[in-house]
């Protein structure tokens, strides 16, 4: 952490990143909103004093706008803080602004929104999503950011932008104040330039919160087995360049004395489909509340417009991907189809969880590439169909579906673009994930 950075310096860096990369939804102007100061105007001091953060725009920071990348929430300023934000501010951290994202988290490249951020390493390429603004902001300014992952939305931008991204165990960090995409899948995490920073910030946010019924006390720490394993199928999914760089990183680990085996999983394909069905089904209920009443976009009603006509019109403001997911998600849970899709996806989810848990009894961590390719060009993305977008999540959906903690660590570049290696641990075994992540990081810096 850059201890000599001042608030005005931090804000200036944020503005520069915004100008170059289009990554900020909002930049703070005055100090009271940024530090969560109490009425008597004293800034909180603590271990995170001097730490300046970007925050993904689906996290509620009281007094700062939160639009979750969506037109339909334009103008919404939450009256309360997310617990995770509250805890960071209590320790003295300062929030300099909100970062752009795919609408409500619906995306792998951060192109499903009106404000599309650019990759700091090559502005003709995407940042990855849905926490794309975090990836760009942190890579460009060096300041950490608070991000969120549902199916891989921290690993993707971390890998594409060449920074560290940590997604904790589901239930480790309170989701109170996180604008929901899929409640059984959403996790608040961190993006930073070093493994230490990313995990340290996570520890500040973590811990039970009575306001979130799914936020748990951690399980006991497992005894280390001192063994890791690669997941064969996921290395096979990667393109040649990515595969080579990530396998190099694995080799470096072996040379550093880590035993690395191989595991093979049977539910890789179905994990992707199960994820999307569950995520979309839950999302379609979470997005039902956006009808132009009480917050966000609230147009005037037209003459003789019924309530149904009004909210149907307002909901036209959703982007195409949001509409797609609402339609598919609603369909998957209608009577007559629920058994075939939603219920079945839930059962497949259990199979995925069991398969990964089984492997993680034997191994401290499992290793995969974070993404199957380097950050694509915007022109390439335009040619992709929705299912091809979804297929890009192949490496991240399983740990996300299973709620397993994982980190994306930048390893050596391919075609001059960053590549990420993903380190996945057992539930609440963040310590082991951290240890192996540090080893990967150390090995990379040596080469």
């Amino acid at each position, binding site marked *: 952490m850059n201890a000599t950075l001042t608030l005005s310096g931090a804000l200036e860096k944020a503005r520069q990143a915004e100008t170059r990369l289009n990554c900020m939804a909002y930049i703070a102007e005055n100090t009271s909103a940024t530090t969560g100061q109490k009425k008597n105007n004293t800034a909180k001091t603590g271990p995170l004093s001097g730490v300046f953060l970007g925050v993904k725009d689906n*996290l*509620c920071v009281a007094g700062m706008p*939160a639009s*979750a990348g969506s037109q339909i*929430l334009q103008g*919404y300023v*939450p*009256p*309360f803080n*997310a617990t995770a934000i509250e805890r960071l501010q209590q320790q003295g951290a300062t929030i300099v602004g909100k970062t752009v994202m795919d609408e409500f988290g619906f995306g792998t490249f951060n192109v499903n929104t009106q404000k599309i951020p650019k990759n700091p390493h090559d502005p003709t390429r995407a940042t990855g999503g849905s926490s794309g603004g975090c990836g760009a902001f942190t890579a460009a300014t060096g300041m950490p950011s608070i991000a969120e992952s549902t199916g891989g939305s921290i690993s993707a931008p971390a890998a594409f932008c060449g920074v560290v991204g940590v997604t904790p165990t589901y239930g480790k960090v309170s*989701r*109170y*104040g*996180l*604008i*929901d995409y*899929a*409640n*059984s899948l959403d996790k608040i995490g961190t993006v930073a330039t070093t493994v230490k920073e990313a995990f340290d910030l996570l520890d500040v946010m973590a811990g039970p919160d*009575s*306001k*979130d*019924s*799914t936020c748990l006390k951690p399980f006991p720490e497992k005894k280390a087995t001192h063994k890791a394993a690669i997941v064969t199928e996921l290395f096979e999914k990667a393109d040649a360049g990515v595969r080579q760089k990530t396998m190099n990183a694995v080799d470096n680990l072996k040379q550093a004395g880590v035993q690395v085996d191989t595991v093979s999983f049977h539910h890789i394909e179905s994990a992707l489909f199960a994820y999307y069905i*569950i995520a979309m*089904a*839950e999302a*379609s*209920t979470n997005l*039902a*509340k956006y*009808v132009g*009443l*009480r*917050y966000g976009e609230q147009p005037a009603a037209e003459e003789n417009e019924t*309530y*149904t006509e009004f*909210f149907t019109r307002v909901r036209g403001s959703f982007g195409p991907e949001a509409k797609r997911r609402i339609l598919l998600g*609603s369909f998957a*849970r*209608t*009577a*007559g*189809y*629920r*058994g*075939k899709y*939603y*219920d079945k996806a*839930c*059962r497949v*989810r*259990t199979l995925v969880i069991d398969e990964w848990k089984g492997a993680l009894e034997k191994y401290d961590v499992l290793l995969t590439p974070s993404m199957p390719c380097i950050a694509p060009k915007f022109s390439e993305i335009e040619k992709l169909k929705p299912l091809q977008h979804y297929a890009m999540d192949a490496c991240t959906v399983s740990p996300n579906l299973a709620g397993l903690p994982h980190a994306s660590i930048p390893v050596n570049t391919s075609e001059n673009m960053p590549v990420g290696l993903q380190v996945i641990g057992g539930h609440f075994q963040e310590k082991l994930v951290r240890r192996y992540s540090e080893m990967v990081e150390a090995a990379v810096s040596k080469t």
Partner: protein
Amino acid sequence: MPFEKTKTESSATSATSTTASTSVQKDASMERSNHPDGLKIGLETHVTLNTMTKLFCGCSTKPAADALPNSQTCPTCLGLPGSKPRLNAKAVELGVRAAEALGFAINPNSIFARKTYYYPDLSKNYQITQYDQPLGLKGCLKVAAANAKIESEGATVKTVDLTRLHIEEDPAQIVYPHGNMANSTYTLLDYNRSGMPLLEIVTEPCLRSPAEAKAYLEELFRLLAYLGVIDAKAERVMKSDANISIAGGERVEIKNITSFAAVEKALQSEFFRQKKMRQLGKPIERQTRLYSEETDTTLLMRTKEQEEDYGYIVEPDLPPLTLTTAFIDTVRRTTKELPTAAIARLQTTVPAQYAPVLVYQNLLPYLESSTFADKPMVAKWLCGDFLKAMNYNGIDDPLAAMPIREFDALLTAIQTGKIHERAAKEYIKKMVAEHKTLDAVLAEERTGAGRHAQDGNADATDALITKIITDNPKAVAEYRAGKPKSLEFLVGQFLRQHLVLHPNEVRELFKKRIEKQ
């Protein structure tokens, strides 16, 4: 979190309020109705649980009478983006208490579900409820014949079978500032009600008359109030959807009926409508209707084709509601003795007519703590003037009305003749209203006009007798002419102003005086 064992989906059942109960009711409705028209009635009743705070947040359920609309709200019950529910433990305890008393099998791992539909009173456009894993399954409530007007001959008790019981949140309150849904120029929403805790209880379609339906609701209300599950004094505590069908016709649902009387009237009017349809040879279609009190008719709200699919999923923000055996046992242990058991037990010690009053008015512990040996007499006085005095002074707890020691002293004084019953009735009123002991009240009486003749001041008594005789010459003349009732009239006049003397004494005093004249 998702659950491994999920039921296979039944083929598209039309989605009225509880699809799961629909599939169960379908089976039960196959059962023949022995009613001449094949009449079948089922009720889905929602009661507001008697908690201090809402079901999923800390907002108060008991705002002051002058509280402003939308003053008892927070991000959670307003459904603000990012807000999350957290379950009220008291609501669970009350739900389990009700389930136990109604004989339900309690599901130790019931699950919350999201029921999604678009209506302005639903802050998240989904309601958190329970769907295929409710808190309770298969209960029953016995309704006594006297108040049930039971159709089946020879029956003294109607057993109303209950399909299920579950917990869910209330939507906001819709207010029509000018009139009603049909004619108000705009609609207002008050989210004070959003998130209030509800218990839903569903009957099998086993009710055979509108009167039976009303009697069931009255008994259900009484039982839940007795258990403290609902606050009997609160407004709008109970509302029902009524389902009714006759032979050859589809089931019609009448939504959101609040009073018991309205339920009976709504069902009568819908029964009449259905019979008329059948008479005219028209099909009775599956519909949702509303009851209008003004016109005493039911009005079409939605047809079967317009029924929504609620697209239920498990509520992912709440873990399964896991109840330990220890918890259920504690609730069982701390629940009051059920009314039917208490009433049965009392039949051996007090006259039958007092037993229900003692039980439902919470006077039983008082009776049992009283040391006065003549229990029928205790029951008579408790259920009569004592209860009246409590109600008059707005006192709920008999111990707060009068210490048992004083009550026993009063009954002892009556039994020994020290005071007569007429006086005792007045003394109870005073003791309760003014929190005075019997001795204090008697002392006050002695310093007033009502001194006992033996205490020495017969003058005031004489003066009053004189006054009454002077003021009522007609009655005196009639008595002399041989009408004893007129004497009682004069005695009554005296006792109205003065109580310590026994009526017999007063009668003798009047007789003597009139004969003297």
